[in-house]
């Protein structure tokens, strides 16, 4: 289904851009917050400067005991500034964690959206053949790991179609008949190939299989309507 896979790739591209944008935004916010935190919180000197100002402005603050008291005030301010530095560290670490969580959340969200889109596409396209394994010995074909027993002739028809699909070729009825019977396709009848296709479809479930697997393209021939990478012949 080429149309589906292209739109899925497009969705993934826009999704990647969106994720990168979101992550960039989150990191920018963290950097701004960190800069704000580091440059606006008062440093140890702010307390000393304030005490100094009080000392200068009050002319009667000259007693020995008063001066010692002012010094102690300045020291406790400095000690508090150390605590602030510790807080700053803790807050920065928490911010980093928060960013990591946000980035993970955004990535998960976008993945969820993309997955939903993909699911919608899969639902829209109905049953999708993810694997087709042909086993000649068991006379069985496995579609999405569901086993279908087929007759010898039907297996032959399916393997001819599978080989043609792997080579990106299309076969008409005469060519199919020719390949299976081993005669030149010029000597073969279009109708006998069509009969083989009809029997294969009958064995697999007719109309559903016509749409999903063995498609007829007018005036060109028959082709397996699946991605060639999922075909395996054992």
């Amino acid at each position: 289904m080429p149309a589906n896979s292209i739109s899925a790739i497009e969705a993934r591209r826009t999704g990647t851009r969106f994720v990168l944008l979101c992550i960039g935004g989150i990191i920018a916010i963290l950097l701004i917050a960190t800069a704000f935190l580091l440059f606006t919180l008062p440093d140890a000197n702010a307390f000393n400067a304030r005490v100094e100002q009080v000392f200068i402005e009050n002319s009667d603050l000259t007693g020995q005991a008063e001066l010692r008291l002012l010094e102690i005030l300045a020291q406790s301010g400095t000690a508090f500034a150390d605590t602030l530095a510790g807080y700053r560290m803790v807050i920065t670490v928490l911010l980093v964690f928060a960013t990591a969580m946000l980035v993970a959340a955004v990535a998960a969200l976008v993945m969820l959206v993309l997955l939903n889109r993909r699911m919608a596409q899969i639902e829209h396209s109905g049953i999708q053949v993810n694997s087709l394994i042909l086993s000649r010995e068991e006379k069985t074909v496995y579609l999405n790991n569901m086993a279908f027993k087929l007759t010898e002739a039907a297996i032959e028809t399916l393997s001819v179609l599978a080989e043609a699909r792997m080579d990106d070729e299309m076969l008409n009825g005469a060519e199919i008949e020719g390949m299976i019977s081993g005669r030149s396709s010029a000597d073969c009848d279009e109708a006998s190939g069509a009969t083989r296709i009809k029997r294969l479809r009958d064995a697999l479930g007719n109309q559903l299989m016509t749409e999903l697997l063995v498609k007829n393209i007018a005036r060109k021939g028959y082709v397996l309507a699946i991605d060639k990478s999922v075909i395996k012949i054992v």
Partner: protein
Amino acid sequence: MKHVIAPLTLILLMAGTANAACYADYKAKRDAPLRLHYGVAEIEGDCTVANAESELADRVASDEWELLAVVSVFDEDGLEERRGNAGEFYLRY
């Protein structure tokens, strides 16, 4: 000789005080950790706050103190009331 020098210095000192001795009280600080002191010092030049500031800044800087402000200038009458507050910085610089 000694008993000649002692009275001489006494006379010189008295001459100094008679010559209207000038004193100033000031505030100074030291950083990291913040230390503050209030002191009294004698001023040699003009008896003004501006002159006291310029003189004292150099003198206290010799001990790594930073002069913050000169509070006032006064003569020897104001010395006694400031002795207690100035403590070890009374006439030290």
